[in-house]
């Protein structure tokens, strides 16, 4: 087990190194001088030269990359050009909202996807199953921002059941803030529930074709016990994987959803950084989100052993 963890961790480090390289290169493929692009058309040549010096753009590419790696290792993501503060601090300030939004969305996606997937597998081929599979495909085809706008129009504007946008006053308590996140979480959760539903269904169908499930049925156990106790526990691994994957995808999906609902989260920070060409913020956000993504995948793999005692590394 320990050897496995160490090996996986080493593999993760290689991937992260390549990720850092991609992130580094993204700010270097900008056509023209990145410093001039960042400062806009009103910048003087002195300003540009100063920023070039600050960003280390006059060094050779490899030296620049090594300097960048050195920074990252010290958790220094650089300074935002527009916000006048370290990128890490800006990300930290915004992470509560995005974290909460992601958790609520994953919760909604799981609450829809897992039970319906199980039901669908248990009633394979029936009306419930066909409807569920059809709806899942439909849900996976709807852009989350469109669900968001539609929810705003019908539930917040026409009926005022939920706030239209924003995150409430700064001193609002957790419950009030969560109320502001209900619609965004639904908008983000619905398309992602589709993937969880399909995986749950496939995984359950796979397990339920095994002999021991037939045996459990044959000895007269109630169907509910067979499905939930015998089948589900063994179907958990793929389900866990897809939930982990979905969580990671939703952190990125939050970018779009936060824009729809005017929420000041990490996604909003990224979009405004892109529009203002604030490269240090874009790079920092990319690096952090992909690190979380990779870490979630690793955690899910390690969780396998907890869920299924037969898994030994």
């Amino acid at each position, binding site marked *: 087990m320990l050897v496995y963890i160490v090996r996986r961790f080493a593999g993760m480090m*290689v991937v992260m190194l*390549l990720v850092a390289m991609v*992130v580094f290169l993204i700010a270097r493929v900008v056509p023209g001088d990145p410093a001039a692009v960042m400062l806009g058309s009103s910048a003087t040549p002195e300003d540009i030269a100063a920023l070039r010096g600050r960003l280390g753009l006059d060094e050779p590419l490899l030296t620049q990359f090594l300097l960048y790696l050195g920074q990252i290792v010290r958790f220094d993501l650089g300074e935002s050009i527009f916000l006048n503060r370290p990128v890490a601090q800006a990300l930290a300030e915004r992470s509560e909202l995005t974290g909460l939004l992601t958790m609520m969305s994953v919760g909604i996606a799981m609450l829809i996807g897992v039970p319906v997937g199980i039901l669908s597998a248990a009633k394979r081929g029936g009306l419930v199953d066909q409807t569920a599979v059809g709806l899942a*495909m439909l849900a996976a085809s*709807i852009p989350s921002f469109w669900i968001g*706008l539609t929810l705003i129009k019908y539930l917040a504007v026409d009926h005022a059941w939920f706030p239209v946008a924003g995150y409430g006053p700064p001193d609002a308590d957790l419950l009030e803030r969560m109320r502001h996140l209900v619609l965004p979480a639904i908008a983000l959760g619905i398309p992602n529930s589709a993937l969880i539903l399909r995986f749950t269904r496939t995984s359950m169908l796979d397990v339920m074709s095994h002999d021991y499930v037939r045996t459990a049925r044959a000895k007269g156990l109630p169907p509910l016990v067979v499905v939930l106790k015998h089948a589900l526990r063994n179907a958990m691994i793929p389900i866990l994987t897809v939930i982990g994957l979905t969580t990671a995808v939703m952190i990125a999906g939050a970018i779009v959803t936060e824009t729809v609902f005017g929420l000041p989260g990490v996604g909003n920070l*990224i*979009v405004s950084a892109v529009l203002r060409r604030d490269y240090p913020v*874009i790079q920092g956000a*990319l690096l952090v989100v992909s690190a979380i993504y990779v870490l979630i995948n690793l955690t899910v793999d390690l969780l396998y052993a907890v869920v299924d005692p037969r898994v030994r590394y």
Partner: protein
Amino acid sequence: MASVPAGHGSVPLPSSAKGRSSRSPAALLLRQLFRRRLVVLSFLVMLAILAVALLAPWITPFNPMKMDILGRLKPPTAAHWFGTDEYGRDVLSRVMLGARLSLLVGLLVVVVATLLGTLLGLAAGYIRPLDGLLMRLTDALMAFPDILLAIAFMAALGPSLYNVVLALGIVYTPRVARVVRAACLVVREMPFIEAATALGASTPRIVFLHILPNLMSPILVQATFIFAYAILTEAALSFLGVGVPPTTPTWGNMIASAQQYFQQADWLILFPGCAIVLTVLSLQIVGDGLRDALDPRLQKAK
């Protein structure tokens, strides 16, 4: 290579008696594909959308660019089926023109991702020393969620139609590369490859003439799904304002520019949204149908 997509022996013969005729692989594939009514329907919807996209400049009921300030933000009527937008332009005509660009972006992304992905996948699958490096590279690219990587590329390249194609093409390349590599690893061990090697065929000949035609089914299936994802992601990019600039209407940027008005004029987001959903849904159903119709053997090798 028109009839090759079905691949040598990559179409399972329909259960015994039915498959005795000596039909071409392509005909067999179509028959297998159209067994399900839903797939036929989705295929027809896809063709219809494609026809609208191709003919848009000639068949729109109004000039999609013509403004009419007095007739702005009017709900759907007999003249304007989908209503008018904030400049009084006909929404139906703009949705039709939007189909052209949304599908064009999707199609070009498929071409870029499939070409790059196939080359990378073949290289990784056939040239052993390259495998580790190339696969770690795809790992790294896949360590970013699609939309985030696309946004980052757009930030670097600047918003334009061709940059969207380039960014999304790169984003989806690893998916094709992985599928191609996995299938290539299976095919390269088959006896006919050994035979070709023994006959002295050159590496390019083996890779492109013997291996590649056998990988067409997984590539085709993957391409269909990438088409669907690309349309969704393009819409999201354009919605965020980092995709196709709003001067040329796509479904995504139509919804984006409706953001200020949709609370009173919901038809502005309803119709472009439905167009996206209909297109993506029918592509996904056809993709699923293709996957079922084609030999599952190669896809199991993931």
